[in-house]
């Protein structure tokens, strides 16, 4: 007992390759291709400076994804805690040697990549929680004392990310953690009371927010109040989206983005650029691709036989979907501007890398879906 044993016989390399979820790979390729197209247009019909670099990153990331996918899930299980603590260490490091951008410390320059530890931490938190809940029974989940450790797993990085300060990312870590807690069978009253508490704590949180964060919230509530000031981003983004109409303005014809009315068009507002040029058809097409990816993640989680795989696959899927929802809702003016990229599409190394790492792990869950991780 306690030592891993397999139900299924070990697979050879070729079988593993065959076991890769090629449908999901195809969807990832499609979404990334949308990203390349949008970046090509954002540069005014040029591969430089964004599209070509993004494609190279994607190629590297794709290879990395395959490698991660082929690594035995039991290794990931064993590595969960070390990865989590390494992530925490990096978050501490960024406090001391991080680069300051947009008024927050977020990056560590590793030479070849600008690493944003808070991004990779989202994966590490899901891994650590999946590890912790792997052996939990439903009775365990009802014991409040049992939930102290997962709370710490989530809150330690949240505290560090808040120090940067990055409210958006810390909220996303909390949401991803809550999702894993939920799927692991935590009693519903926890979520209900936590939600109530969150609502009640809004005034307190307001007090501790930075001015730029307060401004973002205020602007969100009434963007037209100052269309040339803080509300500019939201207003211009809505104009770009709306003026795209059903059929869009056409490839490379997005006037809002081409004439620079649209801010951050290659990063946070890339969905706007896409939907301005390709209209409702293009926008819905992209949303559908994302939907199919979510469903793939869900089906992998449902198909897995081990709790670790289930929680990891679904947790990472939820994490990915949160990015999508938050980014798109933001550019449509549904939520305040939080500065979250659209995974696989926005220009940027870390977000591309994080997304592909996530999918590598999800696929590992798929390949080793029948492996027995441990006995309970």
């Amino acid at each position, binding site marked *: 007992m306690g030592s891993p044993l397999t139900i299924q016989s070990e697979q050879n390399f070729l079988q593993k390759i065959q076991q890769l979820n090629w449908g999901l790979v195809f969807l990832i390729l499609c979404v990334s291709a949308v990203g390349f197209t949008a970046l090509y247009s954002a540069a005014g019909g040029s591969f430089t400076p964004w599209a070509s670099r993004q494609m190279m990153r994607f190629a590297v990331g794709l290879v990395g994804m395959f490698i991660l996918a082929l690594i035995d899930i039991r290794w990931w299980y064993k590595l969960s805690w070390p990865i989590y603590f390494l992530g925490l260490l990096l978050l501490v490091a960024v406090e001391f040697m991080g680069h300051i951008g947009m008024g927050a410390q977020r990056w560590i320059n590793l030479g070849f990549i600008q690493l944003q530890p808070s991004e990779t931490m989202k994966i590490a938190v899901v891994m650590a929680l999946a590890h912790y809940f792997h052996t939990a*029974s*439903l009775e365990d989940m009802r014991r409040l004392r049992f939930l102290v450790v997962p709370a710490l797993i989530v809150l330690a990085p949240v505290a560090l990310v808040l120090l940067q300060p990055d409210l958006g990312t810390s909220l996303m870590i909390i949401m991803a953690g809550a*999702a894993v807690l*939920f*799927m*692991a*069978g935590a009693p519903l009253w926890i979520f209900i009371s936590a939600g109530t508490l969150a609502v009640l704590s809004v005034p307190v949180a307001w007090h501790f927010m930075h001015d730029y964060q307060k401004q973002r919230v205020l602007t969100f509530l009434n963007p037209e109040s100052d269309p040339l000031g803080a509300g500019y981003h939201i207003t*211009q983004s*809505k*104009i*770009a*989206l*709306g*003026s*795209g*109409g*059903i059929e869009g303005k056409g490839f490379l014809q997005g*006037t*809002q983005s081409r*004439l*620079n*009315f649209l801010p951050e068009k290659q990063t946070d507002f890339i969905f706007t650029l896409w*939907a301005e040029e390709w*209209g*409702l058809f293009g*926008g*819905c097409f992209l*949303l559908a691709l*994302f*939907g199919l990816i*979510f*469903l793939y993640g*869900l089906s992998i*989680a*449902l198909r897995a036989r081990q*709790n670790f795989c*289930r929680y990891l696959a*679904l947790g990472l899927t*939820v994490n990915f*979907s949160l990015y999508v*929802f938050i980014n*798109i*809702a933001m550019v*449509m003016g*549904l939520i305040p501007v939080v500065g979250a990229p659209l995974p696989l599409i926005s220009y940027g190394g870390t977000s591309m890398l994080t997304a592909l790492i996530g999918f590598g792990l999800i696929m590992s869950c798929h390949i080793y879906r029948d492996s027995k991780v441990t006995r*309970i």
Partner: protein
Amino acid sequence: MIKSTRKRMRAREKRRVRKEADNTKVFSRRALFIGALQMSALAVLGGRLAWLQVAQGQRYKRLSDKNRISVKMLAPVRGEIVDRFGVPLAVNNRSFRVLVIPEQAGDLQISLRALQKVIDLDEERIEDVLARAKKTAKFAPIEVKDGLTWEEVARIEVRLPDLPGLFTDTGQIRSYPFGVATAHVIGYVGAVSKEELGEDPVLSLPGFKIGKTGIEKRYDREMRGEAGASEVEVNVVGREVRELKRTAPKPGKRVMLTLDGELQRFTQEKLAERRSASAVVLDAQTGAVYALASYPAFDPNVFTHNLSIPMWEELLADPGHPLTNKALAGQYPPASTFKMITALAGLKAGKITRDRRVYCSGHYQYGDDRFHCWKAVGHGYMNVIEALMESCDTYFYELSTEIGIENIAAMARELGLGERFGFELSEEQPGLVPDKNWKMGHLGEVWRPGDTIVNSIGQGQLLATPLQLAVMTARMVNGGYAVKPWIAGLVGEQERERENWPKIEMHKGHLALVKEGMDRVVNDRKGTAYSSRIEDPAMAMGGKTGTAQVRKITMAQRMAGIKNEELVWKSRHHGLFVGYAPLKEPRYVTAVVVEHGVGGSISAAPVAHDLLLETQKRNPAAKILAASAAE
């Protein structure tokens, strides 16, 4: 033992499997719930997208176009003003100017201060720009200074990086080649005032000028033209990316005046020999104005640049009223130039005949009142021709009581006094022809015979403008046609309709008598204007002098024999003269008024001599204005 252990193990295994099954069930349920949540979130996003792109699509499309398309107005070229020979009187010169867009300047004050170091820019101007910037849209350019030299433009261009929001361009500046000489007729253009804004979008162009006075004002609409438009796509900082559509501006129409520019200049120079004077030269048959001048005047070219406040105040303080066109707006007692009207009224009423003589003893006694003739020793016996020639007052005093004011006033009106002609220059004043009704209406007094006596020699309440006096003369010498003055010959291709002037009911013989009197005024040795006669018989003129009392001559002055020229300038009499030429079939008429010129024969008649001689030499009537001639 073993059995029980096995049993226990089996039971534990069973529990484990059940637990696992429970776990799986809970997970599946919650995983599906999460999946459903994700799908509904996607649906919300899709719905929002559809709302923005379909339901609100048109609205956002407009906003997007508003973002990217900037419509720039293109200034039309103002129509030129030329004289009857096509000589330009008002033209457009290219001018370099510097403008500022407040939005791009950041701190406007700092930008302007920086500019002040580069070019000469006075405080007034800076304050004006700052005030203007507060009133207009931030993105609209404001003219800071125009009329820059090429060197100044170069200096600004070099330092442009240090002058945020500023830029130079070439505009148009109105220029008047004849300067002072045409100031009152042509007028000038100036910046659009707030009250004038609004009706035409072109007026909001930076530095756009509109006519403020004279012909510039009267035909502003025609000369202004229509703005063109350039639709340009601009990026977020307002830089133009490309032009989408261009509508060329429509240039304004050219206005050709009946004026003879050189004659106008000549007239102005002649008037400048006096201290304050005005004159009109008309075509006796058509009413066309060949020259219309008022001295002192101002330089309209200064007005189109920047007129400084001290200069403006100086113009306002000048007793010669340089800003007033006295040829139309100056109202004077017609004095003895009115005697032809009294004569014609008397002839018409049958009270005057060629041979009826009146004795002049130097005054006329009516009841207790004594009315003095200008010649204290008297003229002796006078007939109508001699009375005109020597300007005998007593002759008209005595007959006026028989003729009656109603007949005199009626004749005055028929000949053009007391009315506005609807002349193109709006400063035109009506003058005044008093009669019984007028006096009762305005002064509440009964008309007395003394009023008629004073009026008969053009004094009293009678007032006329030089333009009216010229028209009066024209109507007398053209055979009795009621011509009216006009000055705009052609507006664009629009030919002015040649009016057939109505004939005034008048006996030819009466006019001939008056004309003979006017001939004798100039050409008879005893005439009051003999010294101003034209020697060349082919060009000889006729006319009538007039001396308008500014102030009643007191008995003390009369007794002391103080001469009028010894009084202070402001108290001296006005000198008037109306004339025509040539004697046979007169074509040109003139009216000259010299303010405080002491007497008509010494101040006004010499000017009239020069004008009529020069006019006949130039003979502007030979040049016919027609649309084809506008080319």
